[in-house]
């Protein structure tokens, strides 16, 4: 068992090294740092960044925006998802609205949000609006997947509606909500960064991405992108640990 875990970690390192090697080869072929910086240059840019306090403040602010947008979408998506899942009329009422939200291009939402909100709140609003439909849909799917046989059992034993919602629908939907939360969090990081690039809050990864583009500091752009990927992976792992405590 221990051997197989070690083997799997060893394989992952080898796979990562392989892709870094491919990246290196491509950067050597292109031979223009402005298009594709080498892994070594990106690594040095990352090290330089990590030496400044601003980097950590920026990471903190961007994390705050992503997590805030994500949590608001979870709260709203789960609560509204429940009402829509157990009541067809409420579902029919909200379904078109959520269908529209789902199809609006992210860029349109960001530009509208820039007009409505303070720069720092734009990414929160955008993350909320992008993550919310995922959580809402998954909550409804979870409720609809509730075993009809359990509901029949509840009917025989005269269980009231509130207790059916609390003890049957809720638990049945948890695996679906968990899956929705994990996908929504990943998306949250992407759309928060995109919204930051356009709304340019003072401390934001998006602002640094934008500056890298403007000043053609492409290794910095790659290093910030690497930071976003790492944050996304880290928070996904943390979320999974947190969710593990809930019934699956």
């Amino acid at each position, binding site marked *: 068992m221990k051997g197989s875990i070690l083997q799997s970690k060893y394989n992952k390192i080898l796979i990562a090294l392989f892709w870094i090697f491919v990246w290196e080869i491509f950067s050597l072929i292109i031979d223009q740092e402005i298009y594709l910086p080498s892994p070594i240059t990106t690594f040095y840019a990352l090290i330089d960044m990590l030496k400044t306090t601003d980097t950590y403040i920026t990471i903190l602010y961007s994390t705050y925006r992503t997590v805030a947008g994500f949590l608001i979408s979870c709260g709203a998506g789960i609560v509204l998802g429940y009402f829509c899942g157990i009541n067809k009329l409420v579902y029919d009422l909200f379904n078109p609205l959520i269908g529209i939200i789902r199809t609006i291009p992210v860029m349109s939402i960001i530009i509208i949000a820039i007009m409505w909100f303070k720069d720092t709140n734009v990414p929160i609003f955008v993350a909320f609006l992008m993550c919310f439909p995922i959580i809402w849909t998954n909550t409804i799917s979870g409720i609809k997947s509730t075993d009809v*046989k359990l509901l029949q059992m509840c009917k025989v*034993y005269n269980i009231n509606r509130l*207790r059916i919602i609390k003890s049957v629908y809720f*638990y049945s939907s948890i695996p679906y909500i968990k899956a929705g939360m994990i996908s929504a969090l990943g998306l949250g990081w992407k759309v928060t960064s995109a919204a930051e690039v356009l709304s340019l809050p003072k401390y934001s990864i998006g602002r640094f991405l934008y500056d890298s583009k403007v000043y053609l500091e492409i290794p910095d752009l790659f290093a910030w992108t690497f930071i976003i990927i790492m944050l996304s992976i880290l928070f996904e792992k943390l979320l999974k640990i947190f969710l593990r405590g809930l019934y699956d």
Partner: protein
Amino acid sequence: MIEFINVSKKFNDLKVLNNFNIRFEKDKITCLFGPSGVGKTTIANIAANLTEIDNGEVKVTENAVYSFVFQEPRLLEWYSVYDNIDFVLKNVYNSDKRVNIIKDYIDMVELKDFESYKPKELSGGMAQRVSLARAFAYPSNVLILDEPFKGLDMKLKREMISLFKKLWNESKRTVLFITHDVDEAVTLSDFIYILNEKPAKIIDYINILEYNDVSEVKYRLDI
């Protein structure tokens, strides 16, 4: 206690019951015996108010309160054995009374050491015993058993049957018992209706209490 008068039921174009009549006597075990697919479960579901009828009347002679042992245990996987029984009793008893009742029934079905176990951690037979305890712990006066011993091995089936008898003797209620197993029907029932054909038709009726020798009943059921 429960009487079907000219009850008809169709699922799409399939006529399951057509002017069907039957009576389930108070505090007796009435068995519906017959091959799979003749509509026994439909009759049970109609009796328990889980399926609506198209025509006819279902007369319940007094306020019927139901409990049901389904073919599969139908337990809430996220709750423990204790909480599964507590779940159905919450609307009926206060918490002090519930604790005693639940403990008693868990004891009776010999799952005392497993009360904190989740259904996934139990064997099929154990889970079905929980379902049986839940049905008896609930203060029903009509108990419906829809092939509750299906899929259990012979030894477990015998244990479950004797457990059922023990529980029923302590708390008698009107029982509608569905099976296609001759031994189960003979061992448990007071009355047996033999069903066949589609739509369901009663082809024979046996009052077990009139027989001294069960092999004669078995012979009639085997035909």
